[in-house]
């Protein structure tokens, strides 16, 4: 074990003692690893990036306005609400469960916002807290049904879809729609408020800086612990590409109105959930339960509590998404949360790379997926297509996303990657 290829460090590094494994180092190695990964069916973000490119090319040739800065700003405004709902969907999909009531939950949330805040004069913060608590309660109920009665989440949440829609119609009453004052902070947040340019640029630099700082720290700690450290080239390259892309995006949006605060808040939630899923014991348990619930149980994980938490997070995000949607539309109506909201949110999570079969996915998939879904919907609207065609096309896109997910899963299985 001592006759090792590592010449610089006399004692072999803990993870480099086995000569049978190819260790990809440096930029070329990272590239080779990436190609291997794609080939084995671990597609990651690739379908999304390709999809976005394809969509941009097709729609901008059909109608040049599609890529105009202000249209993209509008797209980001629209994306925040569905994106938040998709973020919750990621959590239930990770466990291999599903929540079909998210659309109705968001509709109920917007109705509650209208009734409590506009009609009854409850202060806005308290209204939002009450709405989110309602969401959490609904999630608790779904989790309870799943845990205690082993009711498939598909059925439980399908029942929830109807019940919550009924509740939404009930509390809206005969008028059926409540308009929100345009000068109010909520509607301004949903329609007007834009980050100052310097804030946008500053935020665009942060991810790259964090990548470089984080990998420096990790490398230090790894070499201190006698583990191999990957070197900085990959991290620096990643950070550079990301920073350039983000700065260009901000620059382009600044040609129009700029980056909406609403979208910024959504991204903040994505970052938060990403940390929770990747760096905490809760997140690790989520992946474990999604991968093999029995193994998780025998490892001492409380599977029922993890399930409960996933449903609570999902419904809470759906409720918050409903508030965002109400802010965007400046109204709470009977139509809120109906139609394609459900499918758009689920499609966004799946298109972004979260598997329907559980155990695979990330918070980023909600962000990327919702951009794809919203780009399609926005492009089709610009072409003046009727909603009948829009529904059909969105349905086809969801079907394709699930097929890709399914094929990738099969390929991963045959390549020995779960």
């Amino acid at each position: 074990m001592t006759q090792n290829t590592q010449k610089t460090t006399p004692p072999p590094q803990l993870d480099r003692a086995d000569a049978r494994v190819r260790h990809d180092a440096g930029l070329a190695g990272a590239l080779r690893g990436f190609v291997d990964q794609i080939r084995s069916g671990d597609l990651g973000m690739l379908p999304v990036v390709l999809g976005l490119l394809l969509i941009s090319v097709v729609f901008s040739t059909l109608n040049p306005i599609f890529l105009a800065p202000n249209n993209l700003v509008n797209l980001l405004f629209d994306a925040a609400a569905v994106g938040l709902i998709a973020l919750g969907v990621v959590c239930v999909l990770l466990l291999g469960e599903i929540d079909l009531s998210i659309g109705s939950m968001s509709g109920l949330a917007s109705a509650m916002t209208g009734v409590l805040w506009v009609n009854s004069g409850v202060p806005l913060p308290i209204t939002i807290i009450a709405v989110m608590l309602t969401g959490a309660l609904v999630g608790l109920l779904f989790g309870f049904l799943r845990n205690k009665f082993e009711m498939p989440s598909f059925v439980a949440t399908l029942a929830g879809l109807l019940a919550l829609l009924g509740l939404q119609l009930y509390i809206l009453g005969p008028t059926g729609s409540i308009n929100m004052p345009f000068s109010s902070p909520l509607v301004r947040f949903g329609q007007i408020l834009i980050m100052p340019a310097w804030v946008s640029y500053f935020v665009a630099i942060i991810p790259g800086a964090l990548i470089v700082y984080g990998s420096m720290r990790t490398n230090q700690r790894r070499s201190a612990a006698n583990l191999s450290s990957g070197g900085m080239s990959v991290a620096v390259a990643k950070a550079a590409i990301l920073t350039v892309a983000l700065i260009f995006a901000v620059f382009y949006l600044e040609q129009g109105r700029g980056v909406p605060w609403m979208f910024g808040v959504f991204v903040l939630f994505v970052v938060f959930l990403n940390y929770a899923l990747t760096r905490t014991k809760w997140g690790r348990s989520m992946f474990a339960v999604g991968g093999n619930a029995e193994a998780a149980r025998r490892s001492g994980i409380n599977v029922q509590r993890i399930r409960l938490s996933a449903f609570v997070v999902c419904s809470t995000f759906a409720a918050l998404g409903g508030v965002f949607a109400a802010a965007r539309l400046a109204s709470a109506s009977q139509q809120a949360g109906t139609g394609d909201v459900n499918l758009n949110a689920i499609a966004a999570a799946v298109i972004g790379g979260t598997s329907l079969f559980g155990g695979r996915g990330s918070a980023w998939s909600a962000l990327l997926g919702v951009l794809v879904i919203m780009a399609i919907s926005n492009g089709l609207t610009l072409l003046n297509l009727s909603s009948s065609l829009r529904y059909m096309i969105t349905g086809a896109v969801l079907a394709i996303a699930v097929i890709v997910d399914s094929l990738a899963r099969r390929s991963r299985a045959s390549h020995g990657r779960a």
Partner: protein
Amino acid sequence: MTQENAGPEKGELILRLRGVGKQFGAVTALEDIELDVHAGEVVALVGDNGAGKSTLVKVLAGVHQPTSGTIEYFGKQVLLDTPAAALEMGIATVFQDLALCENLDVVANLFLGHEISPWRMDEVQMEVRAWTLLQELAARIPSVREPIASLSGGQRQTVAIARSLLLDPHIIMLDEPTAALGVAQTAEVLNLIERVRDRGHGVILISHNMEDVRAVADRIVVLRLGKNNGVFTAETSHQELVSAITGASENSVSRRAARKLEEVGEDQ
């Protein structure tokens, strides 16, 4: 993790079962079982189907409660009422189906449910401990950052055994660890069992494979129809073991052997 393991001296009596019985309604699964396990010894538990091996394992793992008898742990009588209690006391079990999460990597599986710093997982420290443990077992795992799905059956068995050792138990129970393995991988697992024993753990090995049992066991405890049916050593002849397991010197195995012998005789 080895530092904490200053516990039992080699040869010290860890576990002592006396008169343990288990009834499921009218069925007596175990009756008056006696079993001793010392530190640094491999005790094989053999018996035919329905002999009560799995029930005994489940009693020791805290899954089932015995209906009679006493379990002494380091001389003190104990109650194993939940799997967690058994685990905490220092009895770890590697189940036959391993129970690993295929979508997670080796480190994640080793530490599942016992992650270091739950709110900000310490991946570096976990990886260091994973490598240290795997190297102590001389395990041949190419990379601890690969998902379990990419490992072979023997490597998975190794990970499962390593995981049971992570909490530094005094006794580790292995339920049919070689049942699904090839020749080379079986040998690796047997080596692993010997290394675990040499680290001072008591090992309880359940197996149907007499060859494996005789290869590593210090003592062979035979169960038959829920009762003790003798304690043997690796030197015991195959025939003697088989007759203890089946309960008669005249049994299907011996009859088959005799018939083969006759056939060979007739051919000549």
